[in-house]
């Protein structure tokens, strides 16, 4: 624009010169400007100068930014100051949040459950096996005080004991199980038959019913997750599970797996207001950029599929819940082939023989071996809708029990009643052999339905050892042999059309005579239903009062065909045939329960 003005001025000047030149008289004529003409020219030049000045000023003004008015400036300044204050405040708050997030290294969550149960159960007619054992001990005592004579009658046996109380107590307290076995082996079979025929009637117990009208329980689970580094995470869960009014931590042993307090069931069986560590493990993922991961610690080995459906929850554990629903310590080496296929190889210890069992007091020949597990857990295909899972596990050197706390009211060797329910630490007394477990789980979400099923196999490999509670799938005085068992579970759940808040489900499972699984921590107050050697029918209804508050109603019908469900020791007996049982057991039982669960 400035250049244009200058060109314009130059043009004007040239135009002026041209005009003057045009008015210049031809050669020979004089060019005299009159004073009036000079004044007019000067005025025109002055006018031209003024115009140029104005143009120059306008040009200069256009090249500078427009300055706001004083009022607008004040508003802007005020807003800027306010924004500046807000920014500083925001920065301070974000900084505090970042600090808190960094220092809060643990993310907590969990759930609390209140449950009320009503339980009915029927115990069948049976012969008391421990009473029988006691009479056998007394029979041996009779023989000892009568020069080896065979007792003629039960009355004669009782009389011998009554007549020699101190001698009998010494005899009974000092006899060992091995001596008892040897003594029985020395009696010819015909005489054994005669002896049992004499003793059995005295041990007969008429069947009876039991009813627990109201059994309330509290369960609190606190879960915490922490990020150790970009590819290492830690997960833990503490669990408290108790019945109203009891926190002793030990029960009187009644022959059921849920009447002992042991390492594998502290979260699945009510014990008291103790906060136990149900699971605590780290996962080291994508090791060296690979697809391998390593996870070590107290394993997430409870509530595995498909046992999560009746909880209205996602998969709660890694291994199949129908095979392993048991807390154990161990490790997993995994390979995530892709988002849908996960392969896991697992190892664990179920019984530590060298700690807490007075191992230094035991001669090497009498020492037990640890019970160890190895297996594979393969998610062959997993999506939000489908799970195909295969599990295999082998348990080495299974012991005749688990380190546990219990109150024993009977001596398992001599069968004598223990006068008070003293709590003792039970320690296994023998390794019995190995157990194989295998299973296939299928779950499928189809429309409003969830379908799930599980088929399972168990097989025992006894080593011939028997202890006071028995050998592997055999009674104390029998010779154990390999046995196989199987179990099937089928379930279906319907999700109502109210945003899946309400669900109703049905489950059925059947276990064979020699069926065994490690499901002692299963969340069933009567007994782990998947361990049943018989059938269980279950119907449940869950309703989310809101997203995190759930009501559940549940009905279970247990029908036991054989005794010893959940145990690998002792020979299963048909319950409808007046069996010899060391401890009474339900032939059928019903449980109705209602729960309120708050998840946070």
């Amino acid at each position, binding site marked *: 624009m400035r250049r244009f003005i200058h060109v314009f001025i130059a043009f004007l000047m040239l135009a002026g010169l041209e005009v003057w030149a045009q008015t210049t008289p031809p050669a020979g004529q004089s060019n005299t400007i009159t004073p009036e003409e000079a004044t007019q020219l000067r005025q025109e030049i002055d006018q031209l100068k003024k115009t140029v000045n104005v143009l120059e000023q306008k040009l200069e003004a256009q090249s500078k930014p427009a300055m706001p008015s004083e009022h607008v400036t004040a508003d802007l300044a005020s807003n800027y100051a306010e924004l500046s204050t807000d920014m500083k405040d925001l920065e301070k708050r974000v900084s505090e949040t970042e600090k808190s997030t960094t220092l809060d290294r643990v993310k907590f969550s969990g759930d609390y459950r209140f449950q009320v149960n009503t339980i*009915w159960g*029927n115990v069948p007619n049976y012969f008391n096996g421990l009473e029988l054992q006691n009479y056998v001990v007394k029979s041996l005592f009779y023989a000892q005080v009568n020069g080896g004579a065979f007792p003629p009658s039960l009355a004669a046996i009782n009389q011998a004991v009554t007549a020699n109380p101190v001698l009998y107590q010494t005899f009974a307290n000092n006899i060992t199980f091995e001596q008892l076995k040897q003594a029985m082996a020395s009696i010819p079979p015909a005489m054994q038959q005669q002896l049992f025929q004499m003793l059995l009637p005295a041990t007969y117990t008429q069947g009876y*019913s039991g*009813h627990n009208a109201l059994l309330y329980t509290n369960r609190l689970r606190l879960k915490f997750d922490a990020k150790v580094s970009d590819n290492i*995470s830690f*997960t833990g869960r503490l669990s408290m599970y108790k019945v109203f009014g009891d926190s002793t931590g030990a029960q009187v042993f009644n022959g059921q797996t849920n009447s002992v307090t042991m390492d594998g069931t502290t979260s699945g069986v009510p014990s008291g207001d103790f906060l136990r560590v149900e699971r605590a*493990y780290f*996962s080291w*993922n994508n090791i060296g950029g690979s697809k391998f*991961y390593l*996870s070590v610690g107290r*394993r*997430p080995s409870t*509530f595995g599929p498909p046992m999560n459906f009746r909880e209205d*929850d*996602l*998969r*709660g*554990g*890694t291994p199949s819940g129908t095979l392993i629903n048991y807390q154990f310590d161990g490790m*997993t080496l*995994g390979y*995530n082939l892709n988002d849908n296929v*996960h392969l*896991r190889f697992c190892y664990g210890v179920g019984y530590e023989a060298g700690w807490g069992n007075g191992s230094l007091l035991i001669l090497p020949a009498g020492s037990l071996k640890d019970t160890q597990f190895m297996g594979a857990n393969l998610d062959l295909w997993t999506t*939000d*809708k489908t799970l195909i899972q295969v599990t295999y596990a082998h348990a080495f050197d299974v012991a005749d029990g688990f380190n546990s706390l219990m109150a024993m009211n009977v001596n398992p060797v001599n069968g004598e009643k223990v006068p008070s329910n003293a709590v003792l630490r039970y320690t296994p007394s023998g390794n019995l052999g190995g157990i194989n477990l295998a299973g296939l789980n299928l779950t499928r979400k189809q429309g409003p339905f969830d379908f799930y099923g599980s088929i399972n196999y168990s097989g025992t490999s006894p080593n011939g050892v028997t202890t006071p509670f028995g050998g592997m799938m055999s009674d104390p005085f029998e010779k154990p042999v390999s046995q196989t068992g199987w179990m099937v579970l089928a379930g279906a759940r319907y999700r*109502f*059309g*109210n*945003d*899946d808040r*309400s669900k*109703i489900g049905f489950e059925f499972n059947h276990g064979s005579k020699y069926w065994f699984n490690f499901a002692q921590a299963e969340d069933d107050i009567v007994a782990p239903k998947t361990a049943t050697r018989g059938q269980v029918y279950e119907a449940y*209804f869950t*309703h989310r009062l809101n997203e995190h508050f759930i009501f559940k*109603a549940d*009905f279970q019908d247990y029908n036991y065909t054989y005794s010893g469900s959940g145990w690998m020791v002792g020979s299963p007996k048909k319950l409808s045939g007046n069996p010899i049982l060391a401890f009474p057991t339900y032939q*059928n039982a*019903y449980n*109705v329960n209602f729960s309120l669960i708050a998840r946070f």
Partner: protein
Amino acid sequence: MSGTRKNAIKSIITALVVCLVAIAALAATTTKGNEGKGKFYYKQDCKQCHVKGAPGGELTPLSKTQAQWKAFFAKGKHPGDNQPLLKVKDMDEEKLNDIYTFLYNHAVDSPQPETCGK
């Protein structure tokens, strides 16, 4: 089993059935979308702009909490260009609800299966 117990069990089962029927009858029309479809639509319609290096920046269900997804879809607009979500090509209310359901159910604070090796 005694007659008293049978009657008690029958009563409980009857009460349960009545509750179930009542709840089913009162069941509100579903507002939840189809999570499976939502995953498909998300990949089909949203991923093109929401992967690493794309104009919308990388966005996965884990990018927000459930509350943040709820607020995002309640607002119904892309924050960058302020365009309504429904203006995305081929989008409709039902599809949008399905996508929301998928993202909400897989948000960073949503319940996760509890297996090792995550």
